């Protein structure tokens, strides 16, 4: 089950980002929640599974609860990515795991003082 829940922030990094196929082929055991073709994918997996996943790919990384990144594999794989994929990986590594000071938390989109997304009817 994903840690990203029905409510609250996506608090836990229950994802493993992988780069490239390894000698044991695609890690099909884990659901893919995102891809940046052709080399990057994000798997729904717990950090404890990092080593297992790393056997299937060139590079695998996960976010630890303190925000740090743990990596296993060939870091040189990152240098071979195109600009968009590099940007995706950088964003994934730097993404805040918590947002305690989110503006307007829980407010209706048309709460006074805010504009709602989408243009309201005339």
């Amino acid at each position, binding site marked *: 089950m994903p840690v990203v*829940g029905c409510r609250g922030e996506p608090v836990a990094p229950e994802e493993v980002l992988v780069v490239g196929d390894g000698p044991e082929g695609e890690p099909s055991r884990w659901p893919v929640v995102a891809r*940046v073709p052709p080399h990057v994918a994000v798997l729904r997996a717990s950090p404890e599974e990092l080593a297992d996943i790393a056997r299937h790919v060139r590079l695998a990384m996960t976010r630890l609860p303190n925000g740090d990144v743990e990596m296993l594999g060939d870091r040189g794989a990152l240098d071979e990515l195109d600009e968009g994929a590099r940007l995706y990986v950088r964003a994934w590594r730097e993404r805040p795991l918590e947002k305690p000071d989110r503006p*307007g938390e829980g407010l209706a989109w*048309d709460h006074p003082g805010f504009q709602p997304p989408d243009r*309201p009817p005339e």
Partner: protein
Amino acid sequence: MAGDLPFEEILVVHDDGAAEALTTPDAETAGARVLQRFGDRVEIRLGATDGGGARMPALSDEVLESLSVTERLGVEALRLRTTGDYLRSKASRPRDGERWNMADCVGAPAPPGMAVLEAPSAPGLEAAAPGTSDYLMGSVAVGVVIVNGPTVDTQFTAAQQTEVVAEVQAGLGWLAGFNPWAGVSFSYDIRPVTISTQPNAPAADNESRWRDPAVGQLGFQQNWNGVWDYVRSLRTNLRTNWAYCVFFVRGYPLDHFAYASIGGPRVVMDYANDGWGPSNIDRVVAHESGHIFGCPDEYASSGCDCDGAWGRFGEPNSNCENCAGAAGVDCLMRANQWAMCMPTRRHLGWGLTSLRTIQPAACHVVSRSLDHLDVFVCDQGGNTATAAWEPAMVSWWEGWWNLLGGRAAPGAHVTVVSRRQDFLDVFAVGTDGHAYTCAWEPGQGWRGWWRIGGASFPQGAMIGALSRSQDHLDIFATDAGGRVLTAAWEPAFTDGWHGWWQIQGGRARPGAPVTAVSRSADKLDVFVVGTDGGCYTAAWEPAFTDGWHGWWRIGNVAFPQGAYLGAVSRSQDKLDVFGTDTGGRVLTAAWEPAFNDGWHGWWQIQGGRAQPGGPVTAVSRSTDHLDVFVIGTDNTTYTAAWEPAFTDGWHGWWNLNGGRAAHGSFITCISRRLDFLDVFVVGLDGRVYTAAWSPGQPWGGWWPMGK
């Protein structure tokens, strides 16, 4: 002239696998800008810009037939746009030149940029084309286009670009993770682009100013159609089910800080994200993506109401703040929060699709592990289908899924058994009259259908199935010749199923249901109405070295031939059997080893009456408890119960929440955990309905399984 476009279009069809064009008329055209691409081989290029018309080379049938569907549609659409009818329709285009928000214009106000939805393509072809974001299941390509302008105020810093992508990851990750059963997976195309357009440059509107050059930078035509082309190319190139794109801008004037079109193809977002700020881009992009996949707004000032037909299933906006009870519940489409209401889940396309079958019909159900339910039915079109439930499902049931393309007679029995935890084996008589099976295993998914032996059965006949111990399967049915047959499988049978064997010369009406029950490990007891209308039973256990024993007749009661008999073992080695006799009495009989005189009964259950032969189904929700279900003479669902503490015999009948079904319908019942009951029936409208009971609670339901 191709429609009323103010420029000439040139059709180019490339040779299969070759770089050279088949139809390039001259060197000048060879270098012309490509306006549209259809597949790998068809292009429409820009011709003279001071006029209209189309240059279309002659194409042989051989060439046309070699084109893909997409390529051929491209050719046919351009041909259509050169026809007289089409030109006349464009010459008299309704409301030509009027503003989109003109007075008396019927329909919702168009968001910025919607004007070019009136693209000059062939209306019929456009309408028939599948949408790019019909519902949120499966793989989705998303283009994230970060538009950098020529001034500092219109450019994203490296940190801001990273932030934007991180926010999109968070928002779409939340959507993807919300419903694991939807299998949502986003494939990204992240494209920072740089354009030279000043923020105050003249433009038709505040979107096309930056959008058109941005899609030009992506290699597509610089207009609204270029956005569609980009999104379609994403779907093609990334091989996804769906596609859309999100444009991020900074410092360009926008009509609104965030907006999208219901059904796609694009979201527009300002980096500043109004008062919500960049740290709420994740929520806003998820909200806008909801629109892309058919969800309406739910906050009050959106002007929503609780009606309408939204999303994949055309369901109302019943969480609209203006009319829902208590102003609705928490939901991303209503407020800045990670929550999703049930109406939004349905609008996204999650949950049960529609299914109808004939009446009367049976659905069959199994609980493959604690609190898991899987239901099987054959719809009115003869398609085998299944749906599943477990408590963690976010949209109640999921389904109906076509079961490996299996076909049978409309309303045919699709029976199921679980031979070990989380394994499913399904059986049906195919349209050729043979028995077929398919199986589901964790990690393997569904596989099959495989034919079982050469026996022939009447179409729609029931194949009774049972697992007498782990990984053993036994099935039973009456063939087209009236022989009561059985077949068996276990992993040691490396050559597949064994059988069919006739059970002790047993005969019944062709297709008559054979009910089987295992009163203890590896023991089998079967029941069938014989050709004389008597209820007969036979038994097998490993100690019977001479095979099956029986048949023995149970009492002298007569049942209509082909009637279904319910049977259950409420505790080890005890048997209870149920049926509706030719006089319409709902009866039961019982056996246990202590009965030296054989079966006891038949007894009428509390005066119960039903159509003669009406199926009486039974379940034991805990040791020595019996619950039975039947469609009464008034077409209403009824239940009765027995347990040892009832010294006055059976209790009931209780009207089960007014459920109604055709005579002959089965009320399929199961206990997915101790003392819980779930029942299913095909209602008078052909939908499957379910109801549930648990200790201390009244019956809940009937709930229709799908719209």
